[in-house]
């Protein structure tokens, strides 16, 4: 039997080595010098730190464990109760399992041998793993480690599917697929509880099986399939958010760490999104507030410039808003634009050029910018009201991703909208993120934000940029700041209070504005603009009741709308 396992392990290593083209065509069994105790590569990828040379020992011990588990009816349910938490501490886990068997009669297991040899051969971290819940077993000796947590709190099928709880003899087949590679998958691993496990000579060493199954059919932690990992990553993120909302901070903390592990096995957009969200969750859990969002405005401006350059969202916003303003200014000889967030002013050169070339000749042009939010945002507006010559010039008010900040202070938005109305603008252009990140329930916000930023990061990945340009990294940082604000901040600090177009429509409507339909020119220009971007086929422009939305595949991400004073308002 032992030899079978050795051969199995050798076969696995050979097949994986050759297909990985590592050049190690030899089985590591034959080469005792192999990296002098180097880790098995495949297992290392999955988080197990096991010396290749120790695999035989581990296999043997686990086989003995398997015999015990399979043979004793009274303890087979233990397998389904087990929570396998830390995949890299195989030693500790085995130890904990075996310590139970010491107390049970009729076992011919010599655990002491196992324990002593385990310590030598297996590398593991001191943090032990499991908390076995023996509530169903009358003769329970509960082995609990205070540092670990009951992962049954994780909702969803991936983490702890309740419905599988009764199937104690469930066999879970898992494909051994190293993450993100195109290696042919190694043979499937059978559950140790399967009576045929011992005869599966082509299966991977039981070390793999153990990780998957002795923790029960419910909670394999380290996943061989990166797609599965992706699903579990999302579930863990949501579970962590839920625990954070319910103030189970210890449990949330454990989950956050787990997210880090899972995220490391992903690639691309999912990995980045998970990392940013995990960081934001950690900040929320530990109550570390991010750097003051307002003081960082210049830093944020720089990041925003890079965001402007790498993806079309800001350009789309600017071009569509400009088109609306241009059309509204068609006959005016003096125009005044008020911008709610001038920053680098990237929007305005294009408008000025278009005004310069308009058929009637260029108007007199004035541009006023409102800077970072002041404690009382209406001060600047009030001052301007005094300066505006009434009815002489056409006024346009423009806000690109700025209005939602006003929702952070109660009454702020109403005051500002009132001030805007007092200016009697010809047109008000509003561009906002098309998502509801302002729900009072944290979990709802979190879920929405997760989906939204996943799409956004996907679009960055898909933009066909030459890999990892600096601009791309900066853009991701820029979005990461937003994620942090949505997740980790509260109260007046949480300024990224995005709301969906429908909500803004209601709000502006009740404030006394009528919608202005963006014309087909705007639509055509926007479509053309998007076609220029390398990832152009992923972006979609949609028209929604006169508003234009830019989205990535099926998900709308930003929305431009235009407004004017309601017809019922009397002219002063």
């Amino acid at each position, binding site marked *: 039997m032992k030899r079978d396992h050795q051969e199995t392990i050798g076969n696995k290593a050979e097949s994986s080595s050759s297909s990985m083209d590592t050049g190690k065509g030899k089985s590591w069994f034959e080469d005792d010098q192999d990296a002098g105790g180097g880790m098995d590569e495949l297992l290392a990828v999955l988080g197990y730190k096991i010396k290749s040379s120790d695999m035989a020992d581990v296999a043997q011990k686990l086989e003995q464990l398997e015999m015990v588990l399979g043979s004793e009816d009274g303890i087979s349910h233990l397998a389904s109760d087990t929570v396998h938490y830390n995949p890299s501490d195989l030693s500790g886990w085995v130890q904990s399992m075996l310590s139970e068997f010491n107390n049970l009669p009729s076992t011919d297991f010599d655990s002491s041998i196992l324990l002593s040899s385990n310590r030598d051969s297996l590398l593991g971290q001191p943090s032990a793993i499991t908390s076995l819940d023996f509530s169903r077993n009358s003769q329970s000796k509960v082995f609990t480690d205070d540092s670990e947590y009951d992962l049954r709190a994780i909702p969803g099928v991936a983490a702890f599917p309740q419905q599988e709880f009764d199937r104690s003899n469930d066999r879970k087949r898992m494909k051994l697929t190293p993450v993100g590679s195109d290696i042919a998958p190694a043979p499937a691993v059978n559950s140790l509880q399967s009576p045929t496990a011992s005869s599966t000579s082509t299966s991977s060493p039981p070390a793999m099986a153990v990780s998957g199954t002795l923790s029960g059919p419910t909670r394999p932690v380290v996943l061989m399939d990166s797609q599965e990992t992706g699903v579990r990553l999302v579930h863990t993120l949501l579970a962590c958010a839920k625990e954070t909302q319910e103030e189970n901070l210890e449990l949330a903390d454990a989950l956050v760490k787990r997210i880090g592990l899972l995220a490391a096995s992903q690639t691309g957009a999912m990995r980045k999104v998970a990392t940013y969200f995990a960081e934001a969750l950690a900040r929320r859990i530990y109550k570390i507030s991010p750097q003051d969002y307002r003081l960082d405005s210049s830093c944020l401006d720089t990041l925003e*410039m890079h965001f*402007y*350059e*790498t993806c079309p969202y800001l*350009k789309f916003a600017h*071009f569509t808003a*400009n088109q609306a303003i241009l059309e509204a200014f068609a006959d005016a000889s003096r125009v005044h634009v008020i911008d709610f967030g001038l920053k*680098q*002013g*990237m929007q305005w*050169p*294009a408008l*000025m*050029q*278009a005004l*310069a*070339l308009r*058929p009637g000749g260029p108007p007199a042009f004035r541009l006023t910018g409102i800077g970072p939010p002041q404690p009382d945002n209406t001060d600047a507006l009030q001052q301007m009201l005094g300066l505006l010559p009434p009815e002489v010039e056409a006024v346009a008010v423009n806000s690109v991703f700025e209005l939602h900040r006003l929702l952070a202070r109660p009454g702020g938005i109403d005051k500002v909208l009132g001030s805007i109305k007092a200016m009697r603008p010809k047109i008000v252009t509003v561009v906002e993120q098309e998502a509801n990140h302002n729900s009072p329930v944290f979990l709802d916000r979190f879920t929405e934000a997760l989906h939204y930023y996943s799409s956004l990061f996907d679009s960055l990945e898909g*933009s*066909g*940029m*030459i890999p990892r340009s600096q*601009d791309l990294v900066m853009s991701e940082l820029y979005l990461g700041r937003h994620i942090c604000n949505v997740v980790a901040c509260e109260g007046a600090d949480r300024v990224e209070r995005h709301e969906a177009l429908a909500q803004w429509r209601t709000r502006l409507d009740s404030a006394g504005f009528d919608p202005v339909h963006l014309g087909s*020119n705007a639509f*055509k*220009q926007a*479509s*053309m*603009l998007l*076609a*220029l*971007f*390398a990832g*152009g*086929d992923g972006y979609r422009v949609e028209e929604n009741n006169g508003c234009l939305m830019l989205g990535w595949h099926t998900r709308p991400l930003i929305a431009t709308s235009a407004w004017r004073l309601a017809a019922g308002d009397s002219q002063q």
Partner: protein
Amino acid sequence: MEGNVKEKRPRFCVNDHVDILMEILKRLDGRSLCVSACVCRLWCTIARNDSLWEHLCFRHASPPPSSGVRPVIVALGGYKRLYMVCVRPVLSRLGRLRIAGDSDRDRRVWTRDGVQLSLSLFCVDYYERLGRLGGGGDASGGSSLMFLCKPVNV
């Protein structure tokens, strides 16, 4: 070339007739125009003439942009730059991807929107270069238009 060439009439050299040369060069496409600038010093000087590039930029534009456009474009850097930075990449990309409504026409025909878009992007480019000369140390220009320079993964 020696020999008994009897020169009955003066040899014709196009270099003596710059206006004809310009008319010919006007009809070239962008790449050929650039190549022609490498022929000799005279051709190089002529190829730098912005009116050639103006013709190149907008000869397929329908309707052609108004004459008021010229001072703006000259102020923003000239037609040659407009072509290099905006028109050429935009045309080539839009040519590859069929824009709805243009599929029946010659794909190199500009619409008014296309012209407007190019001009807007050109303006943005100029503005960014301004910013760089003023305060930034970054030597590369117009990075917000970099997406135009990057090769498209078709």
